[in-house]
């Protein structure tokens, strides 16, 4: 539970500070990088206290549930033209710290979908994959260090 609490609390702080820094994309990018570094430290703690890979991966997926739920609602709302603009708006607010980075994606559309929107939809998936990758790399590095 401490893992989820740390991830959610730090993300709430990232959201708040990112809004304070609106209009300063450089600062917003730095905030996102600082958050990613913090999360890496949290994963390191998880490994240090002996949490298994599958547990950390499960917790990471759970930590992304708000974003995943908003993404599903938003895509559903667009496809079936229902629920109004609410899910889109909430999803954009939730992932706004990442927008200064994701807006660098070339401005194109795939079918009806804006590429930045598709990139935002992929953020929770990328975070889970990165989490798993970092945890696995960290574990491999520690094992190698023990053998040396």
């Amino acid at each position, binding site marked *: 539970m401490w893992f989820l609490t740390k991830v959610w609390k730090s993300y709430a702080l990232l959201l708040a500070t990112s809004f304070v820094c609106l209009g300063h994309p450089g600062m917003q990018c730095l905030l996102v990088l600082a958050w990613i570094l913090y999360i890496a430290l949290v994963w390191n703690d998880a490994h240090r206290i002996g949490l298994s890979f599958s547990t950390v991966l499960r917790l990471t997926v759970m930590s992304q549930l708000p974003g995943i739920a908003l993404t599903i609602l938003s895509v559903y709302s667009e496809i079936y033209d229902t629920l109004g603009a609410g899910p889109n708006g909430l999803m954009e607010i939730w992932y706004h710290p990442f927008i200064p980075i994701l807006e660098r994606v070339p401005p194109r559309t795939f079918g009806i979908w*804006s590429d930045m929107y598709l990139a935002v939809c992929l953020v929770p998936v990328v975070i889970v994959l990165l989490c798993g990758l970092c945890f696995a790399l960290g574990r491999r590095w520690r094992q190698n260090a023990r053998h040396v």
Partner: protein
Amino acid sequence: MLRGHLSGWYQGAPLSTNFEIAKPGDVILLHNLDGAYGYWTHTILYIGHGQVVDANNFARGTELNHVDNYRNYAEVMILRANTTQVIRQRAARFAAQAVGTPYDPLGTLADARTAYCSKLIWRSYANAGVKLCAVRDWVLPDDLANSPNLFCVAHWAAVQEKRNG
């Protein structure tokens, strides 16, 4: 806003507007009830041949639409820039080239990578050399309505706005 009507909400029959009088570069302001950020809740730029450029959807980004899709509003006003037709067409071309630009209502005027409705129109005219209103971080449809460089060409409003719930 707390009731989820950020962009206002429409009630009633479509307005009997006559968009045929619009010319490329005309700014179309749209109003619905309960908008959270001003009287005018949306704005689009007419680019000719019945087409408008609309930056109002996170999923689809900036897109082309037919102007007839914008009758479901309580009030519609067409504004024309107080400049030459060449400049207006230049602004229309800039907007047309912006189709596909990602939508971000929180992006400031300085951020050229994203757009929202009134920012797209402001940038289109700024690119053509016309400042529709003072430079600040965000521009709202109401700022365009109050622009000294735009004048009203046509104005339609529902006879009576009713409000439910």
